C-alpha cells in the first residue's frame, strides 16, 4: 500500500515539554507509525514511554506547555498544520480517543444518554431521533436502554467503559485511539471490553490504535505492534512474529519479564534498573544502560529505526550479531522449573470459617467474607486469587488486625488472632513480630516526611532490635539497595525502589509470615520481575511463609505453592497452583483463566451483552 493510502500516517513525531527559560525536555522523539482502515495496531510501553501523550498529540489535545512537532497525515491531511478551528471538526467525527479510567472519564452530573447524544452534534436530528439513536448506540456496546437515563456513578466500571466507548463512537469516527482501555478493570471485565472493541471495530471497519503496557493484551488484540521505550521506538512488526521472534533486546526483556501463565519458571529474567527519563537517554540507544548486549557502538548516537524484511523494523544496531544469543536465551529461560513434591508443613496460620460484613444492620450491609477458611504452612507460600470485591484485601486486613472478623477463628502460630483488640500486650507484641505486610501502592507505602533510614529505624525499634546504622544497612542490602539510601526521602525513589524499602521495613521485625497485597500490580513489568525474584530469594534465604494476594494468575503461578480462589467472599477452589491453573474445577476459576490474554487472538464476540439486573 502506498504511503498515501493509509488512514493515519505519523512521521517524525517529537513531543517536548517547554520549560521556563526556553529549554525543552524531550518526551518522545522521531516516532513513526501508520494505521490502515480495519487494522489494529498496538503501542506497547511502560510508564515514562510517552505513549499517552502520543495519543493526545494526535488529537491535538496536549496540556499547556507541551508541544508536538512532525506530521500526522490523516486521510491525506496533516493534522498538525491545521488551525484549531479546522481541527475541531475532526475530533469525534473522524478520529476519537478513549481514555483509561472509566471512573473519571464520564461527566458525573450528566445522564449517560446525554453524553452519547452530545457526540452526535453535527448530525441533524430531532430530539426523539437523537434519543433513539443513543439507545441504539448503547445496544451496540451491549447495554440495555435504561442506562441512558442513569448517571455514571450508578454503573459499574465495566459498564462505564462501555458507555464511554459509545460516546467516543457517537460521531462515527474512522479511527479510534484507545489508551489503556482495560487497565483499570478486572481481568474478566478486561477480556469483555477487548472483545467488544474488536467487534465494534470489525462492524465499523475502523482503524484502532491500542495503547497498553501489557504485552499479552497487545499480542491478543493487535495486528501490528510498536514497542516504545523512554520516548523512542525500539521495534515494529507483526504481532505474532514479534512474539515468536523479537528483534530487540528490550522486547525480549519484556517478554521474559512477563510471567507465563502456563508454567512456572525457576527465576524470571528481569531487566535490571528502571526506566530513565527520555531526555537522559535521547542521545544514545535508549535501552543501552540496561542492556546486557550493549557495546560501544550503542552509545555513539541514537540508532535509527531500520527496516527489516517482512515489514518489520528495529532500532538495535547489534541485532544481527546478537540475534542468535537472544534466541538461545529465550529458549533456555523458558524451561519450566522442576516441581518438587511438597512436604506437608505444619500449619502456621489457620483461618476457620471467617465472616465479615460491612455496614452491618443497615440497608447497605455488604458481606465481604463468607465462611472463609484457609491455612498457611510454615515456610509455605500460599496464594489468594480474586478480583476486586472478592474480599481478598479484607481477609488480609483481618489477619493483620486492621479489621476484626465478625465470626470465625484465626490462629497464627499458637496465638488466637481472631480479635486483636482482645489480646494482651505480650501476645500482641509477639504477634506483630510474626506477621507483617507489604501493600500494593508503593507511592503511599512510605511516609513522605520520613527518610528511608528513619522508617527502618522505627520498625527496628518496634521489633526491640537495635536501631544502629549497621542494622539498617543490612536490611537495605537484603532487599538489594545500597546503604546510602538510608538518607534519602521516598520522593526521590522510583516505584520499585520504594517497594523494596517497604519490604525491608516488613522484614525488620524478622517475621515468619509476610502478607503481600498485590505487591507488584502497580509496578512496571520490567520492575515487577525484579521484585518477584526478590520475593523468591527472600523466601529461600529466610524461610518465610507468604500469603500472596493478587488478581494476576501468571504472577501467582510463579510465586506460590498452593492457591485459593476467592469469589465474592467465598473460597470456590483451592489446591496446588499447577493443578488449579491447568485443570480448574470451578466455573469461576475457569472464567478467570480464560480471561487472561494469551497468544490466542481475541475473538470479536458475537454477544457481549450486560446483564440487565446488574444495572443499578
Amino acid at each position: 500500500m502506498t504511503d498515501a493510502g493509509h488512514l493515519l500516517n505519523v512521521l517524525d513525531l517529537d513531543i517536548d515539554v517547554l520549560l521556563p527559560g526556553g529549554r525543552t525536555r524531550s518526551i518522545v522523539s522521531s516516532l513513526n507509525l501508520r494505521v490502515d482502515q480495519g487494522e489494529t495496531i498496538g503501542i506497547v510501553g511502560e510508564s515514562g514511554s510517552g505513549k499517552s501523550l502520543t495519543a493526545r498529540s494526535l488529537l491535538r489535545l496536549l496540556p499547556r506547555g507541551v508541544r508536538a512537532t512532525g506530521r500526522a497525515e490523516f486521510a491525506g491531511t496533516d493534522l498538525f498544520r491545521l488551525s484549531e478551528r479546522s481541527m475541531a471538526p475532526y475530533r469525534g467525527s473522524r478520529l476519537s480517543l478513549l481514555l483509561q479510567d472509566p471512573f473519571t472519564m464520564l461527566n458525573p452530573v450528566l445522564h449517560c444518554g446525554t453524553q452519547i447524544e452530545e457526540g452526535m452534534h453535527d448530525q441533524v436530528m430531532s430530539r426523539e431521533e437523537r434519543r433513539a439513536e443513543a439507545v441504539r448506540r448503547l445496544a451496540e456496546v451491549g447495554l440495555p436502554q435504561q442506562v441512558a437515563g442513569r448517571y455514571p456513578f450508578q454503573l459499574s466500571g465495566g459498564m462505564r467503559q462501555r458507555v464511554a466507548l459509545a460516546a467516543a463512537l457517537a460521531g462515527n469516527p474512522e479511527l479510534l485511539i484507545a489508551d489503556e482501555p482495560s487497565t483499570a478493570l478486572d481481568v474478566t471485565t478486561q477480556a469483555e471490553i477487548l472483545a467488544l472493541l474488536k467487534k465494534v471495530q470489525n462492524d465499523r471497519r475502523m482503524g484502532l490504535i491500542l495503547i497498553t503496557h501489557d504485552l499479552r493484551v497487545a499480542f491478543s488484540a493487535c495486528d501490528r505492534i510498536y514497542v516504545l521505550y523512554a520516548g523512542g521506538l525500539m521495534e515494529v512488526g507483526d504481532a505474532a512474529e514479534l512474539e515468536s521472534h523479537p528483534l530487540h533486546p528490550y522486547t525480549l526483556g519484556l517478554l521474559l519479564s512477563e510471567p507465563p501463565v502456563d508454567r512456572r519458571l525457576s527465576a524470571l529474567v528481569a531487566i535490571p534498573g528502571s526506566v530513565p527519563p527520555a531526555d537522559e537517554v535521547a542521545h544514545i540507544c535508549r535501552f543501552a544502560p540496561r542492556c546486557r548486549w550493549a557495546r560501544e557502538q550503542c552509545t555513539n548516537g541514537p540508532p535509527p529505526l531500520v527496516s527489516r524484511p517482512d515489514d518489520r523494523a528495529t532500532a538495535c544496531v547489534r541485532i544481527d550479531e546478537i540475534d542468535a544469543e537472544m534466541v538461545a536465551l529465550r529458549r533456555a529461560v523458558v524451561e519450566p522449573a522442576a516441581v518438587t513434591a511438597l512436604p506437608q508443613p505444619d500449619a502456621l496460620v489457620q483461618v476457620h470459617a471467617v465472616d465479615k460484613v460491612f455496614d452491618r444492620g443497615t440497608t447497605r450491609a455488604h458481606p465481604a467474607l463468607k465462611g472463609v477458611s484457609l491455612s498457611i504452612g510454615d515456610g509455605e507460600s500460599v496464594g489468594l486469587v480474586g478480583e476486586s470485591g472478592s474480599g481478598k484485601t479484607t481477609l488480609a486486613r483481618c489477619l493483620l488486625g486492621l479489621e476484626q472478623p465478625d465470626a470465625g477463628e484465626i490462629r497464627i502460630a499458637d496465638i488466637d488472632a481472631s480479635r486483636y483488640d482482645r489480646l494482651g500486650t505480650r501476645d500482641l507484641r509477639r504477634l506483630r513480630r510474626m506477621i507483617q505486610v507489604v501493600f500494593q501502592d508503593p507511592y503511599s507505602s512510605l511516609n513522605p516526611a520520613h527518610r528511608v533510614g528513619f522508617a527502618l529505624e522505627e520498625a527496628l525499634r518496634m521489633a526491640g532490635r537495635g536501631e544502629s546504622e549497621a542494622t539498617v544497612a543490612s536490611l537495605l542490602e537484603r532487599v538489594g539497595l545500597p546503604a546510602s539510601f538510608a538518607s534519602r526521602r521516598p520522593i526521590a525513589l522510583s516505584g520499585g525502589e520504594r517497594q523494596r524499602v517497604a519490604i525491608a521495613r516488613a522484614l525488620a521485625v524478622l517475621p515468619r509470615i509476610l502478607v503481600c497485597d498485590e505487591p507488584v500490580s502497580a509496578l512496571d513489568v520490567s520492575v515487577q520481575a525484579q521484585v518477584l525474584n526478590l520475593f523468591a530469594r527472600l523466601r529461600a534465604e529466610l524461610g518465610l511463609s507468604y500469603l500472596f494476594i493478587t488478581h494476576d494468575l501468571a504472577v501467582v503461578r510463579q510465586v506460590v505453592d498452593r492457591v485459593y480462589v476467592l469469589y465474592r467472599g467465598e473460597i470456590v477452589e483451592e489446591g496446588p497452583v499447577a493443578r488449579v491453573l491447568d485443570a480448574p474445577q470451578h466455573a469461576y476459576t475457569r472464567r478467570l483463566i480464560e480471561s487472561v490474554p494469551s497468544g490466542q487472538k481475541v475473538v470479536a464476540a458475537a454477544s457481549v451483552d450486560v446483564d440487565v439486573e446488574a444495572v443499578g
Partner: protein
Amino acid sequence: MTGGWLARFLLGRLLVLVPLLLLISLGVFSLLQLAPSTPERVLLGGRPATPEVLDAIRERYHLDDPFLIQYGRWLLGVIQLDFGTSIRAAEPVLPMIIRRLDITLFLGAFGFLIALVVGLLMGIVAALRRGTVLDRLLVAVSVMGVSAPAFASGILLLYLFGVVLDFFPVFGAGRGFVDRLWHLTLPAIALALSAMALIVKVTRAALIEELDRDYVAFARARGLSFRRVLFGYALRNALVSVVTASGLVLIYMLTGAVLVEVTFSLPGVGSLLVDAVQGLDIPLVQGLVIVLAVFIVVVHLVIDILYRLIDPRIRFGGAHG
C-alpha cells in the same frame, strides 16, 4: 426527580433547625445575664437610682423571676411576634427592626450580586489563563480586596468618589429605587470587595481542578465545543464549591454590612445592632440576634437544597467528588 424528596428534606431540616434557633436565643439570653452592669442600671441609663425606683424597675421588667421564667416569658412573646420594647427608644422592637431591614437587605443583595458576578468572572478568566500574568494579577487584586476590611475600603472609596471626585453621595440611603441604588453603590462595592476574594479563589481553584480532569479531556476528544465543555462540564462540576463559597460570602455580608453601615452612616439593621450592643439595650439585641439567626438558617437551607439540585450524587446518597 419527584418533588417529594424536597418536602421530605425540608421537613427533616426544620426538625433540626427549630431547636437550633431556640438554642441560639437561649444563648443570647444567658449572655445578657452575664453583662457586667445589672439590667436595672442599664435600664436607668445612668440616672440616679433610689431603692424604690430600682424595685419598681425590677417589678416592671420581671427581673426577679428565675432565669428560665424570664426566658419563657420572652419566648412566648416572640411566638406572638412581640419582641419586647427597646429600652432606649421605648418603641416595640420588631417594628424598629423591620423599618431598617430593607436598607440592609438592599445593601446586602447589591453587594452580594457584585461580589458574585465580578468574582465569578474573575475566577473563570483566571482559571482559563492560569499561570499567566493576568491570572496572577486577578488573584492579587482579590487578595488585596480581602485584606481590606470593609470599613477601610469603604473610607477609601468615600474619599475618592465622595470627596475628591464628588461623584457619589457620601451619606444617607436615599429614597426611591434608583436614588437608593445611587446612594448604596459605594457601600455595596466596599462590601463586595471584602468578600470577593473567596469567590475568585474558590472558582478559580475548582475550575482548574475540573479542567484537569479526564472527563474534560474526553469531552474535547469527542469534538464538543469549548463553550459546551467549559459551561456544561467543567463549571457545572465546579458549581458545588462555588455554591458553598457563595453561601459563606452571603453570611459574611452580614458582618460586613455592620461595618459598612457604620462607615457610611446608613440607618440599617447593622448600625442598629452596634448601637443596641453598645447601649446594652437587651430586648433590642435579642430581637436582632433572632432575626439574624433566622436569616442565616434560611441561607443554609437554600444552599443545601441547591447542592441537591446540582449534584445528583448527593441526592442519591453517594459521596461527592
